[in-house]
């Protein structure tokens, strides 16, 4: 068949123009990586103990090249023991939530979709509230709240899948089923808050505002591991998610197994979101807006949108957490509040400035 379509005069100019177009996207990715690296170094200097940027980077590199770089016990304790895991949890958490948002918006063809569209946040909130107020859950001990948030998140996803499957897996049925599940879990959380004591209610509310204050190296590795396991598949499915954006029938005609792609993506996104918010509480803004910001800058091709959204999400959450813990120091604000305070003006600026259609 290829001979039929081959042409004597190739579109050389168009190829060059397209390569340039791709080059700009790659440059954006590189700039994001640099920004995160710089911001992470700066974030590690912020706190009650005084430590400089150079010390921070030296301390980090010294772990990997111990003979070549020297550091002090003090710097090592501050950076590796206290601050770096929080910074990395912010980055990987932001990455996870943003990837989840970008995939959800793509497979549901809905600009308002986010990891929480399918009732995931409400389910996690209910799981946490159940653990805090009733002390009931699937896993005991220190993982009671985390385990509940994780398992109820997956339960919500399975319920949405079950409901949508009954009517046929389409963006509309999934969003409607998600809204039903979201209201159900919200109502149950409200009930638990109604019957709980004041301290329990306060704890539930604080959990639902989101915080990176509970970070640890274990949590960083768990979230990183889960994202590392799920992300390659989602990236591999970039073409299919692109095709879904053109409609289910077009996607089928391009060889996409529409239902299977949508379901597997939904499951992976749920697992990623669950792994992040069970440790951080609900941080809602990143998953919604990071993909939009990225789409406005580099367009809607998911081969680039997914990694770039991930990096924008990591950058946003890290910036929000850094501001949240320094702006009213020593008081640390919930990061969920700060993500909106920081991200909304930036998003509105891009939204008003951009002339092209981005959705």
């Amino acid at each position, binding site marked *: 068949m290829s001979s039929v379509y081959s042409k004597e005069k190739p*579109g050389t100019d168009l190829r060059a123009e397209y390569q340039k*177009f791709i080059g700009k996207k790659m440059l954006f990715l590189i700039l994001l990586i640099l920004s995160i690296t710089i911001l992470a170094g700066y974030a590690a200097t912020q706190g009650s103990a005084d430590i400089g940027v150079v010390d921070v980077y030296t301390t980090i590199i010294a772990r990997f090249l111990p003979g070549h770089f020297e550091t002090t016990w003090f710097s090592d304790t501050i950076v590796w023991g206290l601050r770096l895991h929080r910074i990395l949890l912010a980055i990987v958490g932001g990455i996870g939530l943003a990837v989840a948002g970008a995939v959800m918006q793509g497979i549901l063809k809905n600009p308002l979709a986010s990891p929480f569209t399918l009732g995931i946040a409400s389910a996690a909130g209910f799981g946490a509230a159940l653990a805090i107020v009733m002390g009931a859950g699937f896993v005991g001990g220190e993982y009671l709240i985390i385990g509940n948030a994780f398992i109820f998140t997956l339960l919500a996803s399975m319920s949405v899948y079950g409901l949508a499957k009954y009517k046929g897996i389409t963006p509309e049925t999934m969003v409607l089923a998600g809204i039903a599940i979201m209201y159900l879990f919200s109502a149950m959380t409200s009930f638990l808050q109604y019957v709980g004591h004041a301290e329990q209610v306060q704890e539930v509310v604080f959990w639902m505002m989101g915080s990176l204050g509970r970070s640890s190296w274990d949590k960083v590795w768990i979230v990183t591991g889960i994202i590392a396991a799920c992300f390659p598949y989602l990236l591999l499915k970039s073409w299919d998610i692109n095709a879904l954006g053109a409609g289910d029938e077009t996607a089928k005609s391009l060889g996409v197994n529409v239902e299977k792609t949508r379901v597997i993506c939904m499951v992976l996104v749920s697992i990623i979101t669950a792994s992040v918010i069970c440790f951080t509480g609900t941080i809602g803004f990143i998953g919604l807006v990071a993909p939009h910001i990225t789409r406005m800058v580099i367009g809607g091709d998911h081969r680039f949108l997914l990694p770039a959204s991930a990096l924008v999400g990591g950058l946003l959450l890290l910036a929000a957490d850094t501001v949240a813990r320094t702006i009213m120091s020593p008081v640390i604000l919930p990061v969920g509040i700060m993500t909106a305070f920081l991200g909304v003006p930036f998003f509105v600026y891009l939204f008003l400035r951009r002339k092209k259609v981005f959705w």
Partner: protein
Amino acid sequence: MVKITIKDLTFSYRSNKILNDLNVVVNDAEVLSLVGPNGSGKTTLIKCIDRILKPNGSILLDGREIESMSQQEIARLIGYVPQSSSTPLATTVFDTVLMGRRPHITWKVSDADIGKVADTLELLNLQDLSMRDFAQLSGGQKQKVLIARALAQEPAILLLDEPTSNLDMKHQLDVMETISSLVKEKSISAVMAIHDLNLAARFSDNLVMLKNGKVYAAGTPNDLLCERNIRDVYGVEALVMTSQDKPCIVPLRSLNRSQACV
């Protein structure tokens, strides 16, 4: 050479039978138009051929039963141009057409793929629009981009669902001339569902006239487009003239309506 053979094809939406025992043959390098009133099953037949819908009966592509082929294999053989495509999310014309390479690639886009897209854009004279947002194009431009996307699949068969709907006269002719010349130049077969009988008559090699999900008649435009057939299938009294050796239809009045008035 026969490209598509449809035998005893039946399709129902729940208990509502849309296609009933259809038999159609599409030859190599021909434009075959499906004509008939609304609800006669034109679009459904197009979707059945592309396996978007799963009918009962048999569809053979180049002698192979379509049911035994994977969606990927079908996508390499058939390019589908929908009646209206959802606007892809923030996508340029180039990326929209590149999507047509999806059946041939896993993830990485090769230089050859980029070259094929560039060639297709040039073939359809779309090169100046290549970096424009698809959403910002006019209806006619969008239609041509969707045809380009289907051609980027390098299909042996092109399925088009109302390719001229919502287009003005100039763009209708532009799109139909593009399809017609592509079929001849590339020796592919095109099957299209179309309402406009004059365009169908002018640009099709053969017609299949559908009524209530059945083939009412099949043949060349000159054989098929007569006043009697139009009256029987559409319930319309029409004047059929000949212009440039092709039938030209002037609808006069709806028979049902005139009867109702009486």
